[in-house]
């Protein structure tokens, strides 16, 4: 894979210990990863596989037990890199006493944005995530989906080079999930690097370039989605307006050539696509 390496881990290991120093779980075991500039990289794995631990380590929230992490060639504990890193955690952890405006204003202050830029950018990102109408409502009154959008808004406000999204679509309805996926794709279009974790496989397949599969702290596989999902010994022909006679001849040709025909039929739309289309049509009718 060509390109600049944004994140690199070297034998990254994290062991959780009890108060008395006894090991109770090895969350990560000698994980070596490279994430390149401009790609969407997914950490896949069941619960407890080490996805969130990896993210916390590369954000400098936790320290490795062994090995090391480099983000933009520096330690994640180096505060100077933080201006280029945005993070949306698994749950949108918000200050419940603030409203959306105040929340983003606070993060804007931490980024060192001046008042005018802050106001302009807050208006823009609230518009992007569709929360302009409820910007003055306290975040404790927000639904899970709205809270996720605020989480995304604080990432967008920062406009970082590297975006880390922990389970970005979890708890969202299909439309909310689609919006988050679209925003993620737009980030890629703008040259940002995105690392996301998920156990919703369809989401990952939809938007990611490369995948790392983790299981109980071990890195099992890393490759592009294309390479991982392509079934090498099977071919797919997609055609429109085939007559019965043509289908019969195709079948014959395949059999004559020694091929084993698995299926000829109509392709199916994904449930997500059908759902979004139906809702959109209904909204147009109204």
């Amino acid at each position, binding site marked *: 894979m060509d390109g600049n390496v944004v994140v690199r881990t070297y034998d990254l290991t994290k062991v959780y210990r009890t108060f008395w120093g006894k090991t109770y779980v090895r969350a990560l075991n000698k994980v070596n990863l490279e994430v390149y500039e401009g790609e969407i990289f997914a950490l896949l794995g069941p619960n407890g596989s080490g996805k969130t631990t990896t993210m916390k380590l590369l954000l400098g929230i936790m320290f490795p037990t062994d090995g090391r992490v480099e983000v933009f060639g520096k330690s994640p504990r180096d505060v100077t890199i933080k201006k280029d890193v945005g993070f949306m955690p698994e749950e949108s*952890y918000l200050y*419940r006493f603030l409203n959306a405006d105040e929340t983003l204003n606070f993060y804007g202050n*931490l980024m060192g944005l001046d008042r005018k830029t802050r106001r302009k950018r807050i208006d823009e990102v609230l518009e992007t995530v569709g929360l302009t109408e409820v910007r003055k409502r306290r975040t404790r009154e927000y639904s899970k989906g709205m809270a996720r959008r605020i989480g995304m808004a604080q990432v967008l406000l920062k406009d970082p080079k590297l975006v880390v999204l922990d389970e970005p679509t979890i708890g969202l309805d299909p439309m909310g999930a689609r919006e988050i996926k679209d925003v993620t794709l737009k980030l890629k279009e703008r040259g940002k690097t995105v690392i996301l974790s998920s156990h919703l496989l369809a989401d990952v397949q939809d938007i990611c370039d490369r995948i790392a599969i983790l299981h109980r702290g071990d890195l099992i596989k890393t490759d592009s989605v294309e390479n991982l999902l392509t079934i090498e010994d099977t071919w797919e022909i997609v055609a429109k307006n085939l007559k019965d006679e043509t289908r019969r001849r195709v079948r014959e040709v395949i059999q004559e050539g020694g091929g084993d025909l698995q299926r000829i039929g109509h392709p199916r739309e994904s449930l997500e696509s059908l759902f979004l289309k139906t809702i959109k049509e209904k909204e147009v009718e109204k």
Partner: protein
Amino acid sequence: MSGLIKFLKESWPQIQMALGGLCLALFVAGSASKRAIAIALNTMREELRKKILYFLILFAIIFIGVSGAVSKVQPGREGEAVAQTGLFVVGLFGMLVAVFSATTVLFSEIRGRTIFILFSHPVWSFHIILGKFLGVVAIVFISVALMGVGLVVYFALTPWFGLVGIIIPAVVLIFFQLVMLTGMCILGSTFLSRITNILLSMVLFFVGSGHSFFRDVIEMMKVPVMKYYVKAFLAILPNFEKFSVRGKVFYEDFSLDATYMLSAIGDSVFRAAVMVGLGILFFRLKEVGTERWE
């Protein structure tokens, strides 16, 4: 050597003032950071929207209820009795505000996991701890100022108006006593659980408020090693008693002169700075992402 010790003893108030001035300058320099101020303002807003007003309302009810009754207990010295009770209530409720706010601000940031997003921004541990400290100090200032203003207004409406000149500096000292207590609680919150921090801070506050009692105890001690340890403990423990002058100013021949005030304030600022500094160091070494610490 003995000459040096003598000099230090004699110049101790001036040394405290100088150290306090130096640390105040450090606080001011640290506060110039926009990030620390942003965290301080956020902390203040959080606390103001939570519970501080309830404390103040409670204070007002208790004060109004108690002051009248106390004035009848000491005929001829009604004003002093009411002023002493008022200052006691300001100190007590100020202490509760300081302890409960200072032990909560960092804990709630970690338990609510908002610290994760905070750490994804360009902030140092220094910004977080200093911001939290300044935010709580602002809350303590607001609550002590409101209670102090309440007391002054109460006395302005009574024949004991002359006592206001004593009440105001006494309230200032209470504020600086609470600044020191806030620093202690913030330090505790970097390595203790919230409950342990609350209990320990309160115990140390009450022990520190009995400095002269413990000095008398040391004199009576027979075992030299024990004497040494208790002396060392008292040297480290902030002398909260120095800031609580309500008994002395009203019933003893004690005047609150500028030297006393400034050396006490200097001591408070210096100790608070040391405790906040240690808090920054401890917090830097802590791993906030693990469940165990929470």
